[in-house]
């Protein structure tokens, strides 16, 4: 195989500040208690910036700013005017796309190819899509006079920092709500750059507010009595806590939680296409994807053929510098996440599954995990039941479609599923029977602002994107 020359993206396009404040009422402000937290580049462990650590007083201040903006400006504003602000934001995201992509890769560790080609364009597309809804809400099928809810508290994860921000803020604003958003503590920088975009767009102060910090800040925001709606994306455990905290209130809640998706390969599937889908399903974004196809269910008769092709393909994945345009797998987002992935992979071995990774040299600094495939996995193994949220694939087999369905649905989660077969009637029958909010047939991990996303069962409730996603932000 020929060698790749390095093709590094330049970080020079990003103008990093040494300190970032909270974004409240249209201004960057110091937190009340003055705390801060360092955010690091997970590929190098270098400190990128210090970011304010909010406390309950800051959360309260942000909620009050959002309420004031809702009452005075954003709530009463005609939808056609709100739309133009969202179009403006979409355009600015497109104009500054390279800057956002580089910053996302620096702060998150994902390959620049993905932040450039997926995260940032999709984030801009989300604003563009929802801009068009802002003055058409009465045609969305949720009543003749749909009204905003008020102030939305939004807490997002670290795996797609800017894209998850877009999934939260765009529909909320389109429907006439104002927001207080808390980015994840390991990936706050693109959210804070987005705050600058809000200023550039002359978005009225207080319509979008950002409080940075850890889970305690998120908990304070989610439990704040002054909000009307809470939207959370993250783990099922935290989602459960938020659902409990909101019990007995009138506050609305949507949750996008964990997953353990089955990616089902039948014996008539074209092997090369299926292998690409398997790789995209589990190694996209280092497997830091709630809808990752983390359980491969392969029909027994083609197990060896598919696994041979899969190993050949995985051996060609390039792991390393996320800023290199040829990189397929970047850094694991944090030391804590690396420890979790490592522990679950060790459990997989200890419980008797066979572990395989291609030979690949990992950088010495930073957080890294080689792409890993476990075969001989049983449904009882922890790696078949628990969300790993890393580049680890668990391979199980099946003989009949009934068995595939039973195994696929044998999980408390229900976010996504994949089916690979050339037989159309089988695709439709499988799609009917899989208990998941998104079913990808002969494809995997594709997203679009027009397509609703969200889970069944313990993967949460509510949808984001599409016409359906509007319902979460309308009374």
């Amino acid at each position: 195989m020929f060698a790749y020359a390095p093709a590094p993206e330049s970080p020079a396009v990003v103008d990093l500040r040494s300190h970032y404040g909270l974004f409240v009422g249209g201004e960057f402000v110091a937190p009340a208690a003055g705390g801060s937290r360092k955010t690091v580049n997970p590929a190098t462990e270098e400190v990128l910036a210090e970011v304010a650590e909010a406390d309950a007083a800051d959360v309260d201040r942000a909620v009050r700013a959002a309420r004031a903006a809702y009452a005075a400006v954003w709530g009463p504003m005609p939808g056609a005017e709100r739309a133009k602000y969202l179009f403006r934001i979409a355009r600015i995201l497109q104009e500054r796309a390279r800057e956002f992509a580089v910053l996302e890769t620096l702060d998150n560790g994902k390959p620049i190819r993905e932040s450039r080609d997926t995260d940032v364009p999709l984030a801009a597309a989300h604003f563009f899509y929802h801009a068009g809804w802002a003055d058409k809400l009465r045609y969305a099928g949720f009543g003749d006079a749909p009204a905003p809810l008020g102030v939305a508290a939004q807490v997002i994860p670290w795996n797609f920092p800017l894209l998850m921000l877009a999934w939260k803020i765009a529909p909320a604003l389109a429907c006439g709500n104002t927001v207080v958003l808390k980015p994840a503590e390991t990936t706050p920088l693109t959210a804070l750059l987005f705050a600058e975009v809000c200023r550039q767009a002359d978005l009225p102060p207080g319509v979008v507010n950002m409080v940075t910090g850890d889970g305690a800040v998120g908990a304070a925001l989610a439990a704040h009595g002054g909000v009307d709606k809470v939207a959370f994306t993250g783990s099922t455990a935290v989602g459960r806590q938020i659902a409990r905290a909101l019990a007995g209130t009138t506050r609305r809640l949507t949750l996008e939680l964990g997953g353990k998706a089955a990616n089902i390969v039948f014996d008539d599937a074209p092997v090369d296409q299926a292998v690409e889908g398997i790789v995209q399903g589990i190694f996209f974004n280092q497997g830091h994807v709630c809808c990752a196809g983390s359980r491969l269910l392969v029909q027994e008769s083609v197990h060896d053929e598919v696994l041979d092709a899969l190993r050949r393909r995985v051996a060609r994945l390039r792991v390393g510098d996320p800023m290199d345009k040829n990189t397929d797998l970047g850094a694991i987002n944090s030391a804590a996440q690396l420890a979790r992935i490592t522990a679950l992979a060790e459990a997989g071995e200890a419980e008797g599954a066979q572990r395989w990774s291609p030979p690949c040299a990992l950088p010495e600094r930073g957080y890294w995990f080689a792409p890993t495939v476990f075969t001989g996995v049983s449904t009882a193994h922890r790696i078949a039941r628990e969300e790993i949220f890393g580049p680890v694939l668990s391979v199980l087999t099946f003989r009949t479609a009934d068995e595939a369905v039973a195994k696929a649905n044998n999980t408390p989660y229900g976010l996504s599923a994949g089916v690979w077969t050339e037989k159309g009637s089988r695709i439709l029958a499988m799609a009917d029977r899989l208990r998941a909010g998104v079913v990808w047939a002969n494809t995997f991990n594709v997203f679009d602002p027009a397509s609703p996303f969200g889970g069944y069962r313990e993967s949460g409730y509510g949808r984001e994107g599409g016409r359906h996603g509007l319902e979460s932000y309308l009374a």
Partner: protein
Amino acid sequence: MPAGRLAVRKTYKLFVGGAFPRSESGRTYEVRGANVALASRKDLRDAVVAARAAQPGWAGATPYLRGQILYRVAEMLEARAAEFGALGVAAAEVAAAVDRWVWYAGWADKVAQVRGNANAVAGPYFNLSVPEPLGVVGVVAPADGPLLALTSVLAPAVVTGNTAVVLAAAAHPAAALTLAEAVATADVPGGVVNLLTGRAAETAPWLAAHRDVDGLDLTGLTDADLARECESAAAETLTRVRRPAPEDFAADPGTGRLAAWLETKTVWHPKGR
């Protein structure tokens, strides 16, 4: 009633899995002279098992068939108008309840067209969002009246392919069980509708915490503390909860109660040659 003939009274029992068992606890409570089964935690669990067992078959029936079966519930209710009258249900309420079954029966094969749609994604994909039933829905029926309120919470849950475990209002068990008899004679498969009489305050917390219940309708819980406790227990498995709120059951019901017990599934497939 001809003089000299002693009337045969009806025994009011539970409705579980298509049968009318007594409470396994052997307990009863008295309502207007009748000894009504007082459901226990075990009865509730049996009802959830029956509902779960019936759910795939009911969801798998064609919407046309589900619609016809629900329409037949309306026919069976209409035929029992006099019996409801004897139980003290106003004729207007019976009529409204019959009409409501008819309204919801018609939704069976239309809800996918109203709640689902194609999605115009930016790529060569077929992309369709369709509603699917949640699974098993637990319902604490409101005490607003004997028949119309119960109909208004039950019919929208089952018409889309969910099965239901209903805790009937404690004050109106006879009308609820007469509705169950209509259901039982309308070709509704056993287990699709399960109806427990007794005290919701006792059984609702078990229903809320049950791990095999997918949706929870707390409309009938007037005790705010109990409602909060139930919602909190339901959070353990992310059960979808409809919180108690005042509702005018005489008004146009809209589609909100249908939507509450549906999931949205989105299917992608590439277009190519």
